[in-house]
């Protein structure tokens, strides 16, 4: 018996390792999308390493930018000054528009709730197996990050939501381009409701629009409805780029998300679930 184990030691180790991993896979079945403790432990252990690497290279980059490329600072300052001016103007216009719906006191209360609930975050890692499924951000439970918090890009376009695992200073974000992501949305012109999910290739698909429906057109903008109780209503999601009528019950509608994967660097985490402006 012992000679059998000695002779086949390497095969037994291989079988044990595969069995262990099959066991880990089977553990996930009752948990569904929720991660198991082992996965969370590996994430908590290794995500700070990745965070540290990004911080290290950023500090080197910051040093080089700060000391070697100092001559660009004046140009950048001027650019930022212009951007602040333009944003102040935009803010004023939006406040004026908001006054049609709410009075001054209500607006102050509302905006008072909005500003502290927006947290700046940076992408520190991309999904190594499926690029358009998820990203990792440099904010975690110590920053008050919780599951289902909404993530926007720097222009306020919808990017995704926080899912587990959440480490102390890192968290994973499910992108709207993930095939398992579902967002309740409506079209701009005729307010046609649908469910938006990712196609896993960087675009999205607007689902459950019947083939006979003629109210959806190419080039229309898509916004969140807020019916899913995760994403607040009125957030920019994307634009319809193609509509194909198939022999199926539903149309095949491809939506190009507004956020650009290549420029997904700085993000905004919406910490309050109830940031409803209208």
């Amino acid at each position, binding site marked *: 018996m012992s000679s059998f184990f000695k002779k086949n030691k390497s095969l037994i180790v291989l079988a044990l390792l595969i069995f262990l991993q099959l066991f880990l*896979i089977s553990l996930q079945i009752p948990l569904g999308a929720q991660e198991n403790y082992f996965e969370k432990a590996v994430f908590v252990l290794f995500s700070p390493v990745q965070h540290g690497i990004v911080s290290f290279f950023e500090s080197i980059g910051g040093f080089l930018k700060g000391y070697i490329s100092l001559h660009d600072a004046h140009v950048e300052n001027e650019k930022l000054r212009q951007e602040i001016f333009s944003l102040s103007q935009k803010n004023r216009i939006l406040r004026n528009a908001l006054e049609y719906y709410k009075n001054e006191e209500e607006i102050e209360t509302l905006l008072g709730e909005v500003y502290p609930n927006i947290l700046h975050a940076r992408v520190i890692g991309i999904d190594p197996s499926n*690029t358009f499924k998820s990203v990792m951000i440099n904010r975690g439970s110590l920053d008050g990050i919780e599951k289902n918090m909404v993530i926007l890009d720097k222009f306020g376009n919808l990017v995704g939501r926080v899912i587990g695992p959440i480490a102390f200073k890192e968290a994973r974000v499910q992108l709207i381009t993930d095939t398992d992501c579902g967002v309740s949305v409506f079209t701009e012109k005729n307010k046609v409701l649908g469910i938006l999910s990712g196609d896993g290739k960087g675009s999205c698909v607007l689902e459950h629009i019947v083939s006979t429906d003629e109210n959806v057109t190419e080039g229309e903008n898509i916004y969140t409805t807020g019916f899913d109780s995760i994403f607040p209503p009125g957030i920019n999601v994307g634009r319809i780029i193609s509509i194909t009528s198939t022999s199926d019950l539903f149309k095949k509608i491809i939506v190009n998300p507004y956020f650009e994967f290549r420029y997904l660097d700085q993000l905004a985490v919406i910490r309050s679930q109830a940031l409803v402006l209208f």
Partner: protein
Amino acid sequence: MRDFIETSVGILIALILYTLFSHISVYLIQAINVFSLLVIYMSSTRNEIYGACVGAVCGLIQDSFSLGVFGVAGIAKTVMGYLTGFVSKRIDISPYTRRFILTFILITIELILWAFLYAFIYTKTLNTGKGVIFIQPLITALLGSTLFPQIRKAVQAISRFRR
């Protein structure tokens, strides 16, 4: 102890490269699998048991950074690590062409196994990153077979320096 330190340093370097690649281009991550390179290097310099263990660890790290089924990349890399250790003990892989062919075949096997498990468990089609993933075995094998002798020389030089 030496093996543990070498593997830990290898994982750290793989993590650094993966992070840098993800900041340069998303397609770079799909074209070059740094964790597979680490598994092949470690397995080819040791044996199949060590290869399977390093494969399991690296695969699970990759899985933890990825949204999907935890353990799929783990199984694929465990098998790849085992096969690398098994073959490299029986065949001399020091000539460049032989090393390249072996690395190419092993990464192709890993990719097929991973895609099969992913499709079987997840019942979803694979994101091929506009076809970039199909050139992963070629690019990774080219890079690996070129770098492995240099890495081995560097590791030996460090060992001599420590003595």
